[in-house]
């Protein structure tokens, strides 16, 4: 407590400054979050009243084949969706950032701005643009592949069970690669020249300089990017809904937790919406994200050494 605080009885202005943000945040975000967790412990009886059932909804979700098949399918798909992002989006982002940070590179600002453009577009636009381009009807993708001599390899990827999910993940990678690029780029720029000069004096240049000096120094940023990707992927919905609809076709092969939550909560076609099962799915998603964030905060972030320059 500062001296000023002891002299004054109560500083109302602190309350006034904090109140609007804290009230809205608590009322619209925190209370509904816990409200949703709470709803997952209830079910609706036939006369419309709420009945406490404990963890029964979770049991239904995990083992009752009517629910669990779709749930595990969505979870597995979501995991694959995340793996593709980690294997494709983040390495490409890091590589682009490394190239962009080449000293005295001309037009760097132009490249940065241009490569980031897809990230500002909505999923509706991105989903449809790629749906049109990959459509066998329009023939843009086959024409291109013909020109590259790969014409025979073309297939309507979004419509095939074995390739639809990977294609969607790659579309999402195309859209968001600018974000890791930008964050790593910023981290690379903040490495002091002295460090790099010292490395050069020791004869560490080129690729070995990247692997031995620069990459270890930007690892904390790589950690942040990974957790952002994780949270974003396990919360994704829009791209699937826009390109494949709520049924996440073909044959649910592109169903991820976000689209599964939407169908459970709202119902679709013959299936009735169920807020309590919806809340159960949301609670499981909350748990997954919490586990991911905890692993990052306690397992990864504390072990990564931060360098203060």
């Amino acid at each position, binding site marked *: *407590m*500062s001296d000023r*605080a002891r002299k004054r009885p109560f*500083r109302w*202005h602190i309350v*006034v*400054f*904090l109140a*609007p*943000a*804290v009230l*809205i*945040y608590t*009322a*619209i*975000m*925190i209370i*509904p*979050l816990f*409200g949703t967790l709470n*709803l997952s412990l209830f079910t609706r009886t036939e006369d419309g009243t709420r009945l406490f059932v404990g963890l029964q909804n979770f049991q239904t979700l995990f083992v009752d084949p009517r629910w669990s098949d779709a749930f595990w399918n969505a979870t597995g798909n979501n995991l694959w969706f995340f793996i593709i992002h980690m294997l494709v989006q983040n390495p490409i982002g890091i590589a682009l950032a*490394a*190239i*962009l940070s*080449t*000293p005295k*590179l001309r*037009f760097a*600002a132009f490249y940065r*701005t241009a*490569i*980031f453009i897809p990230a*500002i*577009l*909505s*999923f*509706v636009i991105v989903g449809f*643009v790629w749906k049109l*381009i990959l459509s066998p009807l*329009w*023939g*843009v993708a086959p024409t291109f592949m013909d020109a590259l001599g790969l014409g025979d390899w073309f297939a309507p990827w979004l419509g095939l069970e074995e390739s639809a999910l990977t294609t969607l993940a790659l579309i999402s990678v195309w859209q968001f690669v600018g974000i890791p690029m*930008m964050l790593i*780029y910023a981290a690379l720029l903040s490495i002091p*020249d002295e460090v790099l000069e010292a490395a*050069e004096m020791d004869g560490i*240049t*080129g*690729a070995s*300089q*990247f692997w031995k000096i620069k990459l270890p120094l930007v690892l904390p940023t790589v950690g942040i990017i990974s957790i952002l990707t994780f*949270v974003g992927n396990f919360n994704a*919905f*829009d791209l699937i809904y*826009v390109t494949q609809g709520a049924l996440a076709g073909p044959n649910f092969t592109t169903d991820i937790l*976000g689209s599964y939550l939407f169908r459970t909560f709202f119902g679709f076609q013959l299936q009735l919406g169920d*807020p309590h099962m*919806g809340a159960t799915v*949301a609670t499981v*998603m909350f748990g997954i994200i919490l586990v991911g964030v905890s692993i990052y905060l306690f397992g990864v972030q504390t072990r990564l050494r931060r360098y203060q320059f």
Partner: protein
Amino acid sequence: MANPLFSARGNLGRTAAAHAILIVYTILALYPVFLILINSVKSRRAIFNDPLALPTAQTFDPIGFQTVLEQGNFLLYFQNSLIVTVASLFFVLLFGAMAAFALAEYRFRGNLLMGLYLALGIMIPIRLGTVAILEIMVAAGLVNTLTSLVLVYTAQGLPLAVFILQEFMRQVSDDLKNAARIDGLSEYRIFFTIALPLVRPAMATVAVFTMIPIWNDLWFPLILAPGEATKTLTLGSQIFLGQYVTDWNAVLAALSLAIIPVVVLYLIFSRQLIRGITKGAVK
């Protein structure tokens, strides 16, 4: 494996290779969007016969835009999106700056805890509370109103805004504030006339970060405000595209109409945005 690109001593070959890779990637990022834009003003036959060609006098045909403007309520959707985005942005910036100022400026019991509490929302997506949010909005009679969206987006944007602005509020000179206090200015005047103007660059960055997800969101408009009168541009174009899926002229025109304003705004603010991301890092 020696990759010459990462060398600090650039020579002509390395620079050329760097440019080649970046140009290829830039084309990969921009070409799909460019393709949609050029085909949106072509006749149906030209779209299919030669999709990669630029529109010429013979193939020019604005029929798609006519369909969109006649059939869709795009002006209304655009207006709804604008109202929701601007109003949410205003509340996020004002309330976020106020809270950030309180946390950065005053020492009080629970300061750290309050900061952590507000930061929770950065990692946990508000979507997970949707079931209960809908219940609350139904109970409050706010379903199918723009107010419900503004409330949700304000709550969604606040955690990151408070977190970023707090850092910048700390950098505002104490001497300046103390001088103002000696002159008898109230804490409110200090906030509005000294702190707020000084963190304006940071506010612009927060504004861009906050704005993009709000403008592009599909989930909450779909769930909280799907009515015709309250559709946002993102939801409206999603439904329009679904209905007119076989009318390629209309689909391409609708996509172009959705792309152009966002890209224009981005190009105007891109320096601000990129400076925000690379905050203080550019040497």
